[in-house]
Structure formats: structure tokens, C-alpha cells
């Protein structure tokens, strides 16, 4: 571990490489986190199945590309539409029944969804690690000092576009305004004639679409397998907790920060501890924030 830190200090190009990779990947995490923040803000539900939607979106993109040779980014769009429908149906079947209940019920219900999806994906897509090879080149910057896969740059742009479109939609679109109104005060929104049930269903569906785009980008950059979802749930949660619910700029910044921190930690502690780092970071961030709140006799809630 010490050797790795020495290496990092003595060779700044490695650090630069890690940070650049991390920032580009962080934008992908931020996309799923944005969806989680939306569902959390509008419905007061922490969606534990977030990571499974990411993986499902990745698989759909992968299979569209592999089986019928669809262009990867067109497949991404199709996956987003499919996941929207999946989210809508899941809302009507399950989430609608727990949306008014306590936190524990909704967390457990979404956990149930995540377990079902994991096993269904395992049965349907197989347990192998899969990767969608877009065939994009690897850019070489600073005279070969830094390697940069073009797909990461493209992913960064795609997540910016997806996030931006959604932000504009929430600000300008009729439905987007209804979603924001419901987030602010659901009863008042209902009094104004907004069908909050429909708003919830749309929100959940949109969240699933965002996850699908995230998953499509993940399967192009790395690999996915049916049980890899939980780490994406935790990353999303971590980003939202650091940024605060309802803070879009914060989500982007903390997403990029998480990406960079994760890459650097993976290098310093060794890649076998990269996942452990995320989970330990989650516990640490929450504990530190809570301890600071406790000084004012408040608590995270």
C-alpha cells in the first residue's frame, strides 16, 4: 500500500490518469444517483433496486447489440424505453402499495424487487460477466503518458446529455412541473388537480430509464453480471447523501468526486478492496455527518 502511495507521489501522470478516469466514470454514477434523488424527493422512497435496474438496462443493451447487431447507442435508447415500462408496471404492482407506508416497508419492498430481478436476470441472461465492445479506440494523451479510452469520454457526454435533457424537462415540461410540485407538497398538488399517482408512476419510470442509460454505459466501459447491482445502489445513495436530496449540481459534483476517489482508492489499496472502499466510505460518511449533527442535538433522518 505504501509502495503504491510512493508511486502515486513520484509519478503524477498516474495520479492524473486515475483522476481523469474517475471523473469520467463518476458522471455515469451521477446519472443513476440523479434518478435515486428524484424518487427519494418525490416519493420519499429509497429505491434499493436501483442497481438491479442499472444491470438490467445493461443486459438489454448488450443483448440488442449482440443478437441483432443494433448500434449500441440506439440500443441504449431502446433499453431506456423498456425500463420505463418496467418501472411503470412495478410501480403499479408494488410501489403504489407501499408509497404511503413507513420507510422500513418501502426499503424492504424494493429489496424484494431487487432479489427477484437478480435471480430472473441470472436465469434469463446467465451468470457470466459480459462486456459490450464498441470498438472505440484508446486515445493517447501527453505523448503516451496517459491512456484514455474514447468510450469513457463518450459516456461522459452521453450522461451529460441525458441528465441535461431531464433537467430541462423537469423545469419546462408540463409533467416535469407536476413532478416538482408533487415533490414540494403532495397534498397541495393533489388539491390543484394533479394526479399524484400518475406522477409517482412517471417518476419511477423515468428513474428506471436513467438507470438503463447508466447500465448501458457501464456495460460498454466495464463488465456486468446479475449480482453486481448492490454496489450501484450504494454509489447512488452515497452520492445523494453527500449532495443532498434535490440538489442537481451537488449530485453531479459528488458523482464526479466519488468516481475519482474510487479510482484512486482502488489503486492505493489494491483493486480487491475497491468495492470494500465504497461500502466503508458509505458508513464513514454517514457516521461523520451524524456525529456532526449530534453536536446540535439533531440526527440524520
Amino acid at each position, binding site marked *: 500500500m505504501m509502495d503504491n502511495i510512493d508511486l502515486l507521489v513520484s509519478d503524477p501522470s498516474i495520479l492524473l490518469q486515475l483522476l481523469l478516469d474517475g471523473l469520467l466514470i463518476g458522471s455515469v454514477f451521477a446519472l443513476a444517483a440523479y434518478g435515486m434523488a428524484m424518487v427519494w424527493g418525490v416519493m420519499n422512497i429509497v429505491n434499493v433496486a436501483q442497481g438491479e435496474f442499472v444491470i438490467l438496462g445493461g443486459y438489454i443493451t448488450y443483448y440488442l447489440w449482440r443478437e441483432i447487431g443494433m448500434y449500441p447507442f440506439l440500443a441504449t435508447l431502446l433499453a431506456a424505453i423498456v425500463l420505463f415500462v418496467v418501472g411503470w408496471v412495478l410501480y403499479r404492482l408494488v410501489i403504489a402499495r407501499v408509497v404511503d407506508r413507513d420507510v422500513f416497508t418501502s426499503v424492504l419492498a424494493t*429489496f*424484494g424487487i431487487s432479489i427477484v430481478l437478480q435471480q430472473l436476470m441470472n436465469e434469463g441472461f446467465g451468470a457470466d460477466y459480459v462486456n459490450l465492445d464498441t470498438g472505440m479506440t484508446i486515445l493517447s494523451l501527453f505523448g503516451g503518458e496517459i491512456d484514455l479510452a474514447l468510450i469513457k469520454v463518450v459516456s461522459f457526454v452521453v450522461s451529460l446529455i441525458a441528465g441535461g435533457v431531464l433537467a430541462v424537462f423537469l423545469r419546462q415540461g408540463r409533467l416535469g412541473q407536476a413532478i416538482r410540485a408533487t415533490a414540494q407538497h403532495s397534498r397541495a398538488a393533489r388539491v390543484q388537480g394533479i394526479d399524484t399517482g400518475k406522477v409517482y408512476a412517471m417518476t419511477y419510470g423515468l428513474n428506471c430509464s436513467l438507470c438503463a442509460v447508466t447500465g448501458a454505459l457501464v456495460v460498454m466501459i466495464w463488465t456486468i453480471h446479475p449480482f453486481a447491482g448492490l454496489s450501484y445502489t450504494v454509489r447512488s445513495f452515497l452520492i445523494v447523501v453527500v449532495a443532498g436530496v434535490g440538489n442537481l449540481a451537488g449530485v453531479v459534483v459528488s458523482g464526479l468526486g466519488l468516481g475519482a476517489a474510487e479510482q484512486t482508492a482502488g489503486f492505493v489499496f489494491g483493486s*480487491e478492496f475497491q468495492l470494500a472502499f465504497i461500502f466503508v466510505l458509505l458508513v464513514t460518511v454517514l457516521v461523520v455527518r451524524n456525529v456532526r449533527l449530534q453536536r446540535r442535538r439533531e440526527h440524520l433522518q
Partner: protein
Amino acid sequence: MGLGETAEKPIWHVHSWPRWIRYFLLPLLGVVLLVALPHLFPDRVTFLADLWAMIIFALTWDVVGGQMGYNSFGNIFFFGVGMYVCAIVQKEMLETAGESADYFLALGLGAGLGALVCIVLAALLGSVILGMRGHYFAVCTLGLGVAGAEIAAGIDYIGAGSGMSVPLYPIDAGNQERFFYYCFLVLALGALFFFRRLYAGRFGLVLNAIRDDEEKAESMGLRTTLHKTLAWMSAACFLGLLGAGIGNQSGYIDPRDVAFPASTFGIYMILAVLMGGRGTLWGPVLGSFVFHVAKEFFWTEFLGWNRVALGLLILFVVVFAPGGILGWVQDRRRRLDEEEVEHPPDGEGGVSFAQGGAQ
């Protein structure tokens, strides 16, 4: 107790039986039955042992989740810690002492040390984590359980991701399955009596006060953080002992599937409690029984789809039966009582009830 004293008690009303039956014959029969069970069903011993393990899981979850209202998803952390500590102690002892070392002494020492480490960890973590509420507490504890698995999977000393094996059970010491059956039986009964005493006294009342309204409990001068941490420590102690036992029963410790199974046993314990009824002493026991039998059925009938069945079961329980079996019974009894008050069966029941209330 003015209501119904004049009425003839039905035979299943245990409280009306003579004292010597209730306090001597029934427990004796129970103990004889529990001791004899593995001999009656020799090819089902592991199933029965795992039933006791499930009961311990559920009882320990219910302390914090049911009685105190803190829905932890990470209690499995202590289970894994106990398992690894015990295995390490056993391995070190048997390696230094060679063949002469006593397997059971090493197991006992390891389990004790494992429980001790769990208690200390629960005290340290509890004082900060139990300060959170709602989503934050739920996801933080979920992260804790998974963090345990990921950290253990990176440490070479304990076999990293490929896991470690525990010392072999001595061949000349009798039946291994039966030994662990009795271990878990004793542990489960110990946990049951311990928590029964705990809930009967002031401590249980404080836990329930925290669940019902923590701000008020605090304003009343109750030391909520201390009680919350103590409750988690007691759960961690039993979980550590159980982990030590399960690690030796299975013979091989895999960090993700055996030691820190956050998405299997970490959830099973919650489900078992929910099925039986949260916040009751016997709910977890009943729920564990129902869940364990149902699980065995699913696992043999729907192999490969078992986790789908499990997820659907979670959704069903959470959405349609959040009170569990005991909650349903209590609800029904309350409704029957209300009906009786509104429509007294012979006209006198209602009067005697009213008199009882007035006195």
C-alpha cells in the same frame, strides 16, 4: 380481569391448568421432546439445527428491529465477525498445540472471544450508527453488512475471496450434526430466556418507549443512546456465538455466502420476524418456524427459482401482512372483543364488562 371469569374455560386455555402441570410437567415434556428430536428424525438433524439457528437470528433481530423500532439490515455483520474470530482462534490454537489440542476447548474459547469482539464492535458502532434514523439507518446498516464481506474477501490471512476452512470435527467425538443441534438448541433457549427477562423489566419498556417516540423518551430523561447500544450489544453477542457455531457446522467459511450473507440470511431474519409478528417475544419464534419450513419447501420444489420465490414472499408479506401472524391474531382478537362489546352474547357480558371498567 372481570370479563369471562364466570364462563367455562376451554381446554386449550393453558393458564387455567393446575400449576404443577404448567410449571413442571409441560417444561419437562418440552425438554425431553427437544432432546429426543434428533434421535427421532436422524436424517433431519441439520434441518432441525438450522431451525434453531433461524430462531436465534430472528430473536436477535427483533430486539433492535421489533422492540426498539430500528430496522437494521446489517446485523449479519456480527454473525460474520464471530465466525471469523472463532475460526482464527481455533486455527491458531490447533496449529501451535498440534494434535494434542482439544477441539472443543478451542471451539469454546473461539466462540467466547468471537462474542466478545462482537460486543465491543457493537458498542463502538452502535453509539454512532444508532443515532441515525429512517433511510439513513437502513442503508448504513446494509452497507455495514456488505462492507464486512468485501473487507474479508480482501484479507489474505483469512483466505481472502476463496475463504478458509475450519479445523475438522474429531471423528471419535460422536455425531457432528447432533452436537451442533444441541449447541444451537441451548443457544436458542438461552436467547429466549434472556430476552424474555429483558422485555419483562424496565429495559424492555425503555426499548418500546424509544420505538414509540424517541424524542419523548429522551425528554423523560431516559438514556436512549445507552439503551439502544446495550440492546444492539446483546443481539451482537448471540449473533457472534451463532456465527462461531455455523462456521464450524458448515466446515468452510466463504466471505460472501457463509460469513456475511447480507442478501440471504441478513434478510431471512427480518422476514422470519415479520411473518411471526414484530415486537413480540414469540412472534420471531413462530415466524422462524413457518419461514424455515416454507424455505425448505421452496428450495426443494423450485430449485433455481428459489430467490424469485423469496423475493415474491418478501413483497407479499410486506404489502399484505405487515403485522405477521401474531399481529393478525391480535387484530382479530381485538375485533372480536369489539363485536362482543357491541353485541353481548347473552346481555350480561356487556354489563359485567362495564362494571369491571367502573371499579
